[in-house]
């Protein structure tokens, strides 16, 4: 593989572009408008500058990365790509439309990957004539720091598609894990009780927010407590993930959201990004 197409130049698209260019791939980066692409390129340039300042990359590497990134307002050139990674807005309808376009544009051997966190890869694939070439490639934020990639095996994904995607993740210096297309994949699903039980313990009055976090860190050895982590992720995002998994499993009780979550969201206490969540953040 030499050229990777990336659709969507938001937080994740940019991050994946940065990582892939740094790993020596040519990147076609597409988004809705020239303006958005220009902004994205500026962000990447500033990330590169910071990378050089912090000594994470050399200035030689930085200029190589810049020369490997090619913004594109149309999908026409995407036929050259061996793989296209989609990282647009999290909407099933819009993703399906995008995949239909990619299906028409790209030759049959091009792998079409989605970075979706919460949608069904199988459902996205249903908009493509040959769903065997569709796969999930779930990066974590930020993609060049987080080593994990969940390679998601849709209901009809072929073995070839899966293996090539695993290989690509390795070429990007990531650690791929393979997971069946199920709500929350591995990480978002298995992490549910970390928050869910902590919220129930709080709701039952077993211990305070501060004590639960202290216990989880010092007795459990976790880097962050559940409430600190919910504040970091955003209590709104965390509730949305919980709801999505709960609804997609037709109300499995293990994933049922807690009323405390809803109250936090309703109150606008969304965590660090609003400066207030389970904790208060100054400055």
């Amino acid at each position, binding site marked *: 593989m030499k050229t990777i197409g990336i659709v969507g130049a938001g937080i994740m698209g940019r991050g994946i572009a940065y990582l892939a260019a740094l790993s020596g791939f040519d990147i076609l980066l597409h988004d809705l408008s020239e303006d958005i692409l220009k902004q994205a390129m500026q962000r990447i340039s500033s990330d590169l500058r910071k990378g050089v300042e912090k000594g994470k990359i050399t200035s030689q590497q930085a200029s190589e990365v810049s020369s490997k990134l090619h913004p594109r307002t149309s999908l026409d050139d995407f036929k050259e790509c061996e793989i296209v990674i989609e990282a647009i807005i999290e909407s099933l309808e819009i993703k399906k439309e995008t995949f239909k376009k990619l299906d028409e544009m790209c030759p049959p051997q091009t792998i079409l990957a989605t970075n979706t966190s919460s949608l069904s890869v199988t459902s996205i694939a249903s908009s493509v004539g040959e769903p065997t070439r569709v796969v999930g490639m779930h990066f974590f934020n930020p993609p060049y720091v987080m080593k994990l990639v969940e390679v998601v095996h849709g209901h009809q994904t072929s073995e070839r598609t899966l293996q090539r995607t695993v290989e690509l993740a390795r070429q990007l210096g990531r650690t791929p894990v393979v997971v069946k297309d199920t709500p929350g994949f591995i990480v978002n699903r*298995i992490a549910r009780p970390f928050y869910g039980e902590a919220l129930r313990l709080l709701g039952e009055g077993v211990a305070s927010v501060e004590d639960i976090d202290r216990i989880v860190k010092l007795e459990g050895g976790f880097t962050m407590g*559940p409430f600190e982590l919910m504040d970091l992720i955003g209590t709104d995002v965390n509730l949305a993930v919980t709801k999505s998994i709960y609804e997609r499993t037709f109300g499995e009780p*293990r994933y049922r959201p807690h009323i405390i979550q809803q109250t936090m969201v309703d109150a606008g206490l969304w965590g660090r990004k609003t400066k207030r969540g389970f904790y208060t953040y100054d400055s």
Partner: protein
Amino acid sequence: MPSSRQSIYLIGDFMLVEEFGEMCHAKDVRILYRLNSKNSQKPLPAYFKQQSSPPRNASIVVELTNSDSTVKKKNLHLLEKSIPRTTPILSSSVTTTVTEQSTWLKHSDRLVGISGFPTLISQKLCEIAPSIHTKRETITKASEFFFTLGKQVAIVQDRIGMVMPRILCMLINEAVFALMENIASPRDIDTAMKLGTNYPSGPIEWADRIGVKNVCDVLMALQGDLHEERYRISPLLQVMATGQQWWHT
């Protein structure tokens, strides 16, 4: 650290006695112990001194049974009749609340619950759960004891599973549901949780170190206490516990 060597008496399940004992030994506390089962899984080091009942001058006694409440009751009776009325009894209250345990004793004001659970008991913090009968002095003595071991304490309400064992067992249960549904390999599940969300250990390998049966005991107690489907044990976990089998990851 105490100037004259402190002695502690441990009674209960092998894994917990071993882990608690090692932690005490590292702080130069003398360990006397008795195990629930005569045939222990492996020999304990020589600094563990076996003794069928606690010495009257033990500064603290600790009951560490989560597996069987009948045995736990017997052990608590033995402790109560062998030590002075004021010696604090610390008792694991992960699968039986300390309030229930206090109904088994004559003098329950010196009984206090602790979060005795494999792989957690040797960490930097111990949860302490008083019952409604526990005297303040007992809580203070228990806390001070943990301070001499270099640990922090957190006082929590008396509830099955306490805080960390409950969260941990539910994480493991979820991971085993995922395994049962064959969504990923045990190794990939562990890798994903360590790299994707920075867990100190993968849930499957963690369960391996705890012992599946010990995880099941907590989940079963939680289900019995809360009667919610959410605490249903993964059938695969149940089978593994019964068959004493596990993945070698």
